């Protein structure tokens, strides 16, 4: 009866949170997508934070009746359902002096927030509502408020207290005037507003009224508002009505899914937090297949020596299929009779500008014109004539990648192709820094240490660390030291941070940088993060040598892989950034094996010139491709490699990088099979005696001597846990001994299934010992499945029964501490065994003996003589032996510099 009442109340509570449907979306408009093939449109609408909408559905149809959802946009809901708590009113009342006046008959209203003046006060009181509180974030779209009106506006709450008194506020569009002897800032050509500052005689600006003020955002005061204010999201009126004045424009681009010149209808459905919906009126659009626009910038560079013409253009059109370059006689304005020079695929001018090179064409330009026809996908054309020709001369064309090879990418899913080129190259830069300043960066600014009284004192060029116990002695300009980094500083010593970048294709197996400063030992930067720090470098000039090593640490022989650089370490911490080549590379690919014009290839990827490899994630269904790479100079030169290919991508059936894992896995499986099967056959496999077992026996003996019971805890895990199984094996041994010595054994269990099995274990152990009478069923019992309650209960047993020996064998968690603490304080002998690494430290410090991890399993295998367990243990031993040998050989090889061996273990996927 009672429950029903509670449920009813609950249901009421939740239902009351329901509320009506959300507001329909405002101001829905749909626009055509510019410069496209008439296949896209953009829908826009307005959203008010806090209007209870959690998502908008975008619906589309060819008539207003057949609309279907095409997408959904989730929006932020700042509204939480807490009750509106009236503010501590004294803070706010009267400070705003603003009234809300709504214009319009129904929602959405236009809100006017009007500042009250003595003249307007009476009329405002009649037509408006006084604002009690301004909200910069909406805390609750809640039921405590009678009514929520949504209004337009963009207001800012200004925190005038934050404006620094001595700061002159630069507000664009405002000027200083004087009014009745008081200087004040006035917006140009506007009525003065009183929230801005006055100028004190001492050239200081401060505000007449401090506290909070509100202003509507206009372009004039935008900077001011954003610096000293926060956007107003809502206001609370004197009758606790909340008015939201915040809007966000949302838009959805419906791309590439329409047919040109057919009518589409869109509507937006708002989905409320309560999942109720309301929808906007439908809006319609007929997407237009825009004709190509004449190219806004088409110009050419003419190499006056070679007479090569470099054409350059770009476009905003998204649907150009190709460009055709024509040459024609001067005066041919019709652009129809020209001779076709070159076709260029549309993608070459999209995003980046297109550049093409027309060799030796310059000579014929005197009596000819060049023009470009842009053809879009629907066959519409626009013509642009070349008007600007800039004479220039290129000494050389940008260098092309050397030794370019295209291959199937190995070990992938037959998806990708890889382009590789040469040579392995080192790029270098450096940075000099003070160890101190670097250390200081890691220290928060606000802290103050009273016990470390060290200061950094700068005297001219040199710096010293000085200790001052009295803060008054600290000279001006000395900087307090928060934290020092090792190594020690010698006066004038600097840290030289060498920045390097290594580029080589993966077939060369690039590895590390070997750095050498002056005549010092060469060092190999193991971590390969692109920087290496030489510390304690004295001021002066140094010679830095960097070599590029492969993964086996052999030096690459080519000159680009060996760089020498003069490093100038000076007191002002110079920085020399890495200088990269200015060339860019463009990868072009085609699946049309007949095509020979590179400009009709697909543009694949734009790459910086220092790269030596590009993996092409080919996303078409074709299998065979031809490639070419173009090199660009930012000054306008362009050159292209010959066409490479065709290359075919093939799926591989074996991952060549995983051979080590394969061999290791085979060895593992073989070792396991051999050991387990020979154990099964009954072959004797030696396991060393585990010291812990003697301790177990002694502990049982001790309990017998004292005539007190033994406690055995099996851990908190289930029966499927190996640790629990091992615990049960040892329980069998303990139970047998205890039965022989006639000592009572208590086994409180955490898991009912473990308890059942524990009972069986003890029963049969007692029978084995010839003392079935020693099996006391009530001493093996289930306690509870609550972690801490279990621990508390077991502690109670320890204290009540005064157990002489406690065993903890199995899987333990945080409760281990509680258990062993009580046992330890009670003076019991405690023996533990677990593989829970996090609990082992507590067992070690609180117990008399602990079986650690695998030792625990070994003890269990040794005691049970279970053949599979022993076989498993032996198989693991075999592998451990192999690992130890490998580590020893590997260590020696690494020390001797024989990296070939170590790299066998380096798996590349």
């Amino acid at each position, binding site marked *: 009866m009672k429950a029903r009442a509670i449920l009813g109340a609950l249901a009421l509570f939740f239902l009351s949170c329901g509320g009506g449907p959300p507001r329909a979306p405002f101001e829905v408009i749909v626009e055509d997508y510019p410069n496209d093939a008439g296949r896209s449109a953009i829908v826009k609408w307005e959203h008010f934070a806090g209007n209870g909408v959690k998502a908008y559905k975008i619906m589309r149809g060819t008539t207003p009746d057949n609309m279907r959802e095409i997408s959904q946009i989730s929006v932020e809901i700042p509204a939480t359902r807490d009750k509106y708590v009236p503010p501590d009113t004294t803070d706010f009342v009267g400070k705003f002096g603003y009234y809300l006046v709504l214009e319009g008959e129904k929602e959405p209203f236009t809100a006017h927030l009007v500042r009250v003046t003595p003249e307007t006060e009476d009329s405002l009181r009649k037509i408006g509502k006084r604002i009690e509180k301004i909200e910069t974030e909406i805390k609750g779209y809640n039921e405590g408020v009678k009514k929520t009106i949504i209004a337009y506006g963009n207001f800012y709450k200004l925190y005038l207290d934050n404006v620094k008194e001595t700061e002159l506020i630069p507000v664009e569009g405002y000027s200083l005037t004087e009014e009745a002897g008081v200087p004040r800032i006035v917006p140009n050509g506007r009525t003065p507003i009183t929230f801005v500052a006055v100028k004190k005689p001492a050239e200081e600006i401060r505000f007449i009224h401090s506290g909070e003020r509100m202003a509507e955002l206009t372009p004039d005061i935008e900077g001011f508002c954003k610096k000293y204010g926060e956007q107003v999201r809502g206001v609370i009126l004197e009758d606790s009505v909340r008015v939201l004045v915040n809007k966000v424009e949302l838009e959805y681009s419906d791309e590439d899914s329409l047919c040109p010149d057919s009518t589409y209808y869109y509507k937006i459905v708002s989905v409320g937090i309560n999942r109720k919906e309301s929808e906007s009126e439908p809006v319609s659009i007929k997407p237009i297949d825009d004709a190509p626009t004449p190219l806004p910038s088409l110009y050419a560079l003419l190499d006056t020596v070679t007479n090569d013409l470099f054409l350059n253009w770009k476009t905003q059109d998204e649907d150009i299929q190709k460009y055709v370059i024509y040459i024609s006689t001067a005066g041919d304005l019709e652009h129809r009779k020209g001779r076709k020079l070159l076709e260029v695929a549309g993608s070459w001018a999209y995003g980046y500008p297109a550049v093409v090179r027309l060799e030796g064409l310059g000579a014929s330009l005197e009596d000819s014109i060049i023009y470009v026809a842009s053809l879009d996908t629907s066959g519409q054309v626009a013509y642009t004539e070349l008007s600007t020709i800039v004479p220039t001369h290129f000494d050389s064309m940008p260098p092309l990648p050397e030794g370019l090879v295209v291959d199937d990418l190995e070990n992938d899913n037959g998806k990708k192709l890889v382009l590789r080129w040469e040579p392995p190259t080192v790029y270098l830069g450096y940075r000099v820094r003070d160890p101190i300043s670097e250390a200081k960066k*890691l220290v928060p600014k606000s802290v103050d240490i009273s016990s470390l009284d060290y200061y950094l004192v700068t005297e001219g060029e040199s710096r010293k660390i000085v200790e001052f116990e009295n803060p008054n002695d600290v000279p001006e300009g000395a900087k307090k030291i928060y934290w020092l980094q090792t190594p020690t500083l010698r006066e004038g010593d600097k840290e030289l941070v060498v920045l390097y970048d290594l580029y080589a294709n993966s077939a060369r197996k690039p590895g590390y940088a070997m750095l050498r400063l002056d005549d010092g030992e060469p060092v190999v930067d193991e971590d390969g993060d692109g920087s290496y720090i030489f510390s304690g470098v004295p001021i002066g000039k140094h010679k830095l040598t960097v070599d590029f090593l492969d993964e086996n640490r052999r030096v690459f022989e080519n000159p680009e892989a060996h760089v020498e650089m003069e490093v100038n370490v000076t007191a002002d911490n110079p920085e020399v950034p890495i200088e990269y080549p200015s060339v860019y590379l463009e990868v072009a690919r085609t699946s049309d094996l007949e095509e020979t014009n590179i400009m009709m290839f697909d543009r694949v990827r734009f790459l910086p010139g220092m790269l030596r490899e590009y993996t092409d994630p080919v996303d078409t269904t074709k299998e065979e491709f031809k490639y070419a790479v173009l090199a660009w100079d930012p000054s306008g030169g362009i050159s292209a490699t010959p066409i490479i290919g065709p290359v075919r991508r093939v799926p591989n059936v074996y991952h060549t990088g995983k051979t080590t894992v394969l061999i290791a896995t085979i060895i593992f499986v073989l070792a396991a099979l051999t050991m387990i099967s020979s154990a099964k056959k009954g072959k004797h496999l030696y396991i060393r005696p585990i010291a812990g077992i003697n301790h177990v026996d002694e502990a049982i003996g001790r309990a017998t001597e004292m005539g007190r019971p033994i406690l055995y805890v099996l851990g908190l895990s289930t029966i499927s846990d190996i640790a629990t199984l091992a615990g049960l094996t040892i329980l069998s041994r303990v139970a047998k001994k205890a039965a022989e010595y006639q000592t009572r054994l208590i086994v409180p269990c955490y898991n009912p299934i473990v308890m059942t099995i524990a009972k069986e274990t003890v029963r049969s152990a007692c029978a084995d010992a010839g003392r079935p009478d020693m099996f006391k069923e009530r001493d093996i019992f289930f306690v509870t499945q609550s972690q801490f309650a279990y621990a508390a209960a077991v502690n109670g047993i320890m204290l009540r029964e005064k157990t002489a020996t406690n065993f903890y064998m199995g899987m333990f968690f945080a409760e281990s501490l509680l258990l062993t603490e009580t046992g330890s304080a009670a003076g019991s002998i405690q023996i533990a065994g677990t593989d829970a690494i996090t609990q082992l430290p507590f067992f070690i410090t609180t117990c008399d003996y602990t079986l650690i991890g695998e030792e625990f399993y070994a003890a269990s295998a040794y005691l049970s003589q279970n053949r599979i367990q022993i076989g498993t243990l032996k198989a693991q031993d075999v592998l451990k032996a192999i690992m130890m040998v490998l580590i020893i050989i590997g260590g020696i090889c690494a020390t001797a510099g024989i990296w070939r061996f170590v790299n066998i273990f380096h798996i590349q996927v």
Partner: protein
Amino acid sequence: MDFWKRLLNIDRRIIYLVIAITVIVPFFLPTGWPINVTYEVKNIYDYIENLGPEGVVLLSADYDASTLAELQPMFDACLRHCFARDVKVIVMSLFPQGVGLAEISLKRIAKEYNKVNGVDYCFLGYKPGGSIIIMGMGSNIRIPFPSDYYGTPLKDIPMMKDINNFSDIDLVISFSGTGIVASWLYYAHEPYNQDIAWGVTAVMASDYYPFLQSHQIVGLIGGMKGAAEYETLISKPSLATSGMDAQSWAHIMIIVFIIIGNIGYLAMRKKERRM
């Protein structure tokens, strides 16, 4: 009863009281000792610092409320750092309890930085299954996560347009108090060379140094101290930094307890031997 025996047998509730006071008082008498930053944490910071607006970081909140105090500050700090650097963030969880904590925190911090759902960050939510989710994400994020937490299909989320699997994500940071972090190593780092970092409870932190040394993980944030280090690095001191004074004093108190306990133990053992 002799002195040591009596001293060691005081009621444990007195010890509880002492440790409670040791923890509470420093909040009112702060020392403001500086927090030194370890390389384990700084590695992660540097990694994110070097990412640009095209960078994508996946934060996996694989924890529950029981380790909230340690892991939530880390999650918050990393999230703040990503947002401050305009790095795109994907948040998910392999634990049902983690998704709630992550949601609350994500909403709050996104607002601090004016970040928009779907554009600057994406909240994938939770899927049950643990490591199988990570495996699926390696093939395609859309296998385990066809839609985000709020039910929006991933194809409609602008940020997720070009993000298909681990090759489109720069760094994965898993925050967890369980061994699930290892699954990220086995199923994200190893097969796909995905850079990963771990934010773990202090309990587990020391066990993971071998993976740090072998460069299998980028960095390791351990416990509340690790979180405080991260807060220091991004100069946004928050919960973890506030807790550090209490942590310091509590550690001293624990060490004092151990010393008293052991002196007593030795004294009593000596006496027993004499007898």
